[in-house]
Every structure is written in structure tokens, then in C-alpha cells.
């Protein structure tokens, strides 16, 4: 292209670009997220659909890395004065965001200021409870939620002579021993997310507190107390079974989930969000079942708690920008859109209407695995111990708790010592956090 042609083309583009753009300026809404693979496509599609549905606002999604990376990017950007409008933060970052009062705009306030129709009761309480104040004011907008379920390799269970899917922990231990005898020498059962499974979900599911003040939901002066006899007994069982690999530890995160997909571990506890991966990798008949419980524990099973992430609105933006964010949230809450999102991604629907619609459509009859986490979350009316949890410094605290679980499994500490130490170290971190979060 000659320079003259180029100049002409540029001029044309400018003229036509000008002609088709609306008379008023489009307000851009920056959305930083941590979604990869199929879920990244979903995020981009949502933004496209929203942008096409109206002409005042343009949502611009940007991928910022994993959950901790995205949170750190948001924090760093805020310090530099260039925060996005919407920041996706995983559930353990909730206390960090909440305590940053000047840095965020609570969602209930946002919706009220913008005059958008907003009924907090329309959302599933098991999900919004996590992101609301004790008064019920919603602080962030739930986006992708999951819970922990037990994934079952039905073929292998049948081969090992386990007729029924185990419901309680003793049944799981028995099944695991049979599986081991039937050739699963390196893994009878296992779980991803060491601390999420064995401390956080375990406590909620058995209706025992992780910490005081409703697991921190009612105040940052919470004190950890998950070194109860029940917790110790469970860890003791795992330690015993680890010795001959009836139970085999799979690490702090979910990088070892493929032990289920490869057929090595026939019973594996991990996120319900593992569904899409299981579907594409497992060459056997699989399903998901609710997490096991100890039958002698009073009130078990209670209800599970969620994982996943929510959308936080950052502070210091203009009223017009907030209006756009509010409209985007209304757009996301639409029943049909939520139902579709749930069925495509495997994440939970956030509104009651979307859940009912999916049920009515008969979707769960064909895909019962997707209903397991919902059944767990809504199993009973949430209590102080199962509404959720909110601990400052939780991102790092999980590592500390996992460290102690590892020490017990490796035989360096007794289960009681390990849990006592996890509680003590966690409390020290909570006190540091409390001092900074005023």
C-alpha cells in the first residue's frame, strides 16, 4: 500500500468510524477476571452480549492470571490509582476486600444509587450469605460458585465389590480398603484442596465451628477453634490410612485432580467445578455424590459452603460508570441467562428462579451430577457454622493449615499437635489482620 492510499484509508476509517458511533460517548467498564479455558470464552461472550444489548456502556473483560494473581493485580492497580471497575475475587479473598472500605463500592449501595431493580432475596442464600454483611447487605456480586463433592468411579467400585456409593466416612474407608485390595494400591481415596476439604467444608458439613463469631462473618475479632475432638479424629483416620495408601494425599490445590480422571483414585473429593474436565477426560462411568460425614456427629450432614468467586466493584469511579456496572449486574441476573450459564459451565446458578427453571426443564434428570452441589448447599437451613467463613489473610492461612495437615500425614506431628498449631498460627495471622483492617 502506498503512503497515499494508506492516508486515504485512514481518513475513510475515521469518517465512517465517526459516522456509525453513537452521538454520545460510550462508557467503558473494565472487568478483570481469572477465568481460563471454556470459562474464559463464557466471560467474553457475556461481555459481547451485554455490549450488543445496549449502546451506552461497553464492558471490557481482561484476563489477569489465577485467582491470587488477579486479586494482587487489583490491589496493585488500586494503589496506583488505576483500579478496574469490576474485579473478580475468589471466596477466600472476601475478608480482604470487605475490610478495604474505601477501596470498594458495596453492591447493595451500587444498585440502590443506580436505581436498578434489585431484590437480594432472589439469590440463593447459601451463596449470597458468603458475600453479605451480618445484616444481609450484599457486598459483592456472586459470579461463579461451586462446592465440594465426592467424585465416584462407578466401574471401579463395582469391580471392587462396593455395591452402594458410600455415604459416611466409615463407609468410605471400607470402600477404599476394598478398592485397594482390588488393585488400587497407590490410592483408595483422596481429595484435592487439602484445607478446603478437611477443615472448611468438613466443619460446615458437620455443623461445627471453624472459628468464633459465625466463622468470622460477624467480626474480624474471630478466634479459630477447629481443633475439636471431631477434627482430630478425622485427621487421625487419614493419618492411619495414609500409612498403607488407603488414603493418599494429593496436595493443597487441584493440580492432582487427574488422579481421578486417570482412574488411579476411584473416590476423590474435589470441586463440583471439576465436572467439565471429568466429562472430557474420564473414560469410565462416573458420578458425583454428597461429601461423606461421621454418623455419630450430631446434626451431620448440615450443609456445605461454596467456593468460587464473586465480582467486586471498586471505589472511586463516576456515577455514570456505576450505573453501567449496575446494569451489567441486572443483565447477569436474568433468569434465562443464569440457567444457561449454569448448564454450560457447571457452576451453580445464583438465583432461585434459575435453579427452579433448570429443575423444571428436566435438566437434572439427564445430568444428576450437576445437582449434587446444590443439594449439599441447600441440605438444611444454614447455621452459624455453615453460613460461610470470613477470615482475614485467608489466602495464606490456607497454606498454613495445609502445612500442618502435611506434618500430621508425614508423621512429624500428632493430629492433635498439628491442629493445635494450625489454630495457633492462624490466630496470630488473624490478629495481624485485625490490626490493619480498621
Amino acid at each position, binding site marked *: 500500500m502506498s503512503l497515499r492510499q494508506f492516508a486515504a484509508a485512514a481518513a475513510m476509517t475515521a469518517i465512517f468510524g465517526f459516522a456509525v458511533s453513537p452521538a454520545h460517548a460510550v462508557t467503558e467498564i473494565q472487568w478483570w477476571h481469572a477465568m481460563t479455558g471454556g470459562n474464559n470464552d463464557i466471560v467474553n461472550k457475556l461481555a459481547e452480549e451485554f455490549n450488543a444489548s445496549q449502546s451506552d456502556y461497553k464492558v471490557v473483560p481482561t484476563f489477569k492470571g489465577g485467582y*491470587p494473581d488477579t486479586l*494482587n493485580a487489583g*490491589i496493585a492497580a*488500586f*494503589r496506583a490509582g488505576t483500579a478496574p471497575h469490576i474485579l473478580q475475587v475468589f471466596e477466600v479473598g472476601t475478608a*480482604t476486600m470487605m*475490610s*478495604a*472500605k*474505601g*477501596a470498594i463500592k458495596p453492591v447493595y449501595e451500587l444498585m440502590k444509587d443506580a436505581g436498578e431493580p434489585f431484590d437480594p432475596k432472589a439469590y440463593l442464600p447459601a451463596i449470597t450469605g458468603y458475600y453479605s454483611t451480618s445484616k444481609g447487605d450484599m457486598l459483592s456480586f456472586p459470579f461463579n460458585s461451586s462446592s465440594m463433592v465426592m467424585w465416584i468411579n462407578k466401574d471401579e467400585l463395582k469391580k471392587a465389590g462396593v455395591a452402594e456409593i458410600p455415604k459416611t466416612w466409615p463407609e468410605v474407608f471400607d470402600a477404599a480398603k476394598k478398592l485397594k485390595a482390588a488393585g488400587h494400591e*497407590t*490410592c483408595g481415596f483422596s481429595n484435592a484442596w487439602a484445607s478446603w476439604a478437611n477443615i472448611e467444608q468438613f466443619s460446615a458439613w458437620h455443623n461445627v465451628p471453624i472459628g468464633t463469631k459465625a466463622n468470622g462473618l460477624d467480626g474480624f475479632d474471630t478466634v479459630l477453634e477447629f481443633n475439636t475432638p471431631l477434627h482430630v479424629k478425622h485427621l487421625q483416620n487419614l493419618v492411619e490410612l*495414609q500409612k498403607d495408601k488407603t488414603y*493418599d*494425599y*494429593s*496436595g*493443597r*490445590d487441584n*493440580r*492432582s485432580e*487427574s*488422579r481421578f480422571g*486417570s482412574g*488411579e483414585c476411584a473416590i476423590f473429593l474435589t470441586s463440583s467445578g471439576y465436572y467439565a474436565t471429568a466429562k472430557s477426560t474420564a473414560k469410565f462411568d462416573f458420578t458425583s455424590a454428597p461429601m461423606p460425614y461421621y454418623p455419630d456427629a450430631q446434626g451431620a450432614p448440615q450443609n456445605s459452603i461454596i467456593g468460587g468467586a464473586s465480582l467486586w466493584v471498586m471505589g472511586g469511579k463516576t456515577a455514570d460508570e456505576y450505573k453501567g456496572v449496575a446494569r451489567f449486574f441486572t443483565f447477569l441476573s436474568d433468569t434465562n441467562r443464569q440457567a444457561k450459564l449454569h448448564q454450560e459451565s457447571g457452576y451453580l446458578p445464583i438465583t432461585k428462579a434459575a435453579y427452579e427453571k433448570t429443575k423444571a426443564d428436566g435438566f437434572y434428570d439427564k445430568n444428576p451430577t450437576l445437582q449434587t452441589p446444590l443439594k449439599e448447599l441447600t441440605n438444611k437451613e444454614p447455621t452459624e457454622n455453615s453460613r460461610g467463613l470470613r477470615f482475614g*489473610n485467608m*489466602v*495464606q492461612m490456607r*497454606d498454613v493449615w*495445609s*502445612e*500442618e495437615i*502435611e*506434618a500430621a*500425614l*508425614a508423621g*512429624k506431628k500428632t493430629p492433635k499437635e498439628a491442629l493445635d498449631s494450625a489454630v495457633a*498460627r492462624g490466630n496470630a*495471622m488473624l490478629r*495481624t489482620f485485625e*490490626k*490493619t*483492617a*480498621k
Partner: protein
Amino acid sequence: MEKSVVFNGKLLPYLLLAPQLAITLIFFYWPASQAIWQSFLREDAFGLNSEFVGLENYQALFAQPEYYTAIGITVVFSSLVTVLSLGVALLFATQADKNLKGGSVYKTLMIWPYAVAPAIAGVLWFFIFHPTLGTLARPLRAMGFDWNPMLNGTHAMILVVMAAVWKQVAYNFLFFLAGLQAIPKSVIEAGAIDGAGPLRRFWTIIFPLLSPTTFFLLVVNIVYVFFETFGIIDAVTSGGPAGSTTTMVYKVFADGRLGGDLGGSAAQSVVLMVIVIALTAIQFRYVERKVQY
């Protein structure tokens, strides 16, 4: 008549020095002073409120038993990585320096790992030696060796040391090779004529002549192992199991980035900085005497 040119004024030399000085000031002194200042503050992650707390961060740090564990682990980790990466690289370089068929291919391949980002190197090693998924861990286990870096601290340490060494060997190899090629062939040949065997020639001629390179690499490697290995540790073990691969620099990263405790993290990096400055000073004071330029 005066023939030599005399530069009057001091402007030009300072002007010529300016870029280098600016870089040192902006990229070293400024962040270092920031870290020192921050180590006296207690601040939330967002920087919304910060408070001067004096030495409180240091007191809290030295009251943590985990910190002393981390110091011990750092000593083990850094000695292993430094010695192994220098030793292995020297061995490879002396072998590559011989007249080999396809020697340049070999040399090129040796340098590759240096171009791999630490996090990617970490993930590679994580999967290769994953107790059940790993392609190299499986044969180990098949032979009856219970390899399990997820629960066995010693295995985890071996794994991060291997990953850190693997990345650094390439760099060291490059410098050793260049150093070897700069040694005049005539000196070695003279030794050979005098009847010295290959080992003797290596220890009495090559190794002393290589000492400036070795000394330089020693300093660089210690800096590497103290400051740059947290990416590998994060990807391979996240400091686990049970803190057995949590080195001092990984703890700086974990407390500051994952924990949002910037003051505590800054205090740790100041301690780390002091240690490395001291180590470097010792090296220049005592080790450098043995270097023959």
C-alpha cells in the same frame, strides 16, 4: 607545545557516568530504601491506612519459630544449589570444550534451560516428578522406592534443588565454557609435555586460571539462590510439605504477596538484604584473595 589533550572541567565525566548512576539509583537504592521504610510500617494490602510501628515487624518476625526453620532450610538449599550448579556446569563445560562431533549442537542445547521462565521450569519438574502422574516418578516407584515429594520433606527438597540447579547450570556453563576457551592452549600443552595427566592439568593449570570466572559465578549464584528461586519453589512445592521447602525468599513472597502483610514481608527482605550484602563482602574479602587474575 602541549601535545596531550587535557579535559577541563568535571562535567563530562559525570555526564558519562550519569546513565549508570541513574540506573543504580532507580533500580537499587530507591527500592531498597523503600523496603527499609516499609519494614517500619504496618499497612493493609490496599494501602488505605498505614501506621509507623517502629521495630514491631522485626520483633514479630524473630518471635516466629517458622522463621528460624526457614533460615536453616535456606542454608541447606543455597549450599546445595550453589555447589551443584557450579560443579555440574564445570563438568559439562570441560567436556564440551573438547573436540566433539556435533559439539555446537550440544553447547546450544545446554543453554536452553536458561531461557525457560522459573514458573514454567517449576511446573515442568512438578509434573515430571509428581508421585503418581510423573513420567520419571513412576519408574522410581515401580522399583519399590516410595518417592513422594508431596509428603516427604527430603524428597521435596531434592526436587526443588534439582529444578533450581537445572535452570542455573545453563548460565554457569556458558561462562565456564567462555573461561575455558580463553585459556591459552600452549600452557596446557606445555603441561602435557611435562608429563602431567588430564586431572593434574585440570587442577594445577585450568582450575586456577578459571578462578576469576568461578569467583564471579559464585557471587552471581548466591544472589540467584537467595533472590530468584521463589518462582520455582512456588510452582513445585509452594514451600511444602509442612514448610520443608520454605526458604527465606519464598517466605518474603508468601507473606507479602499471598498474605498481604507488606510490613512483615519488607522486614524479611531487609534481613535477607543484610545477609546477602554480608556474604558478598566476605567473599570479596576472603575468597577473592585466592583468585588469580
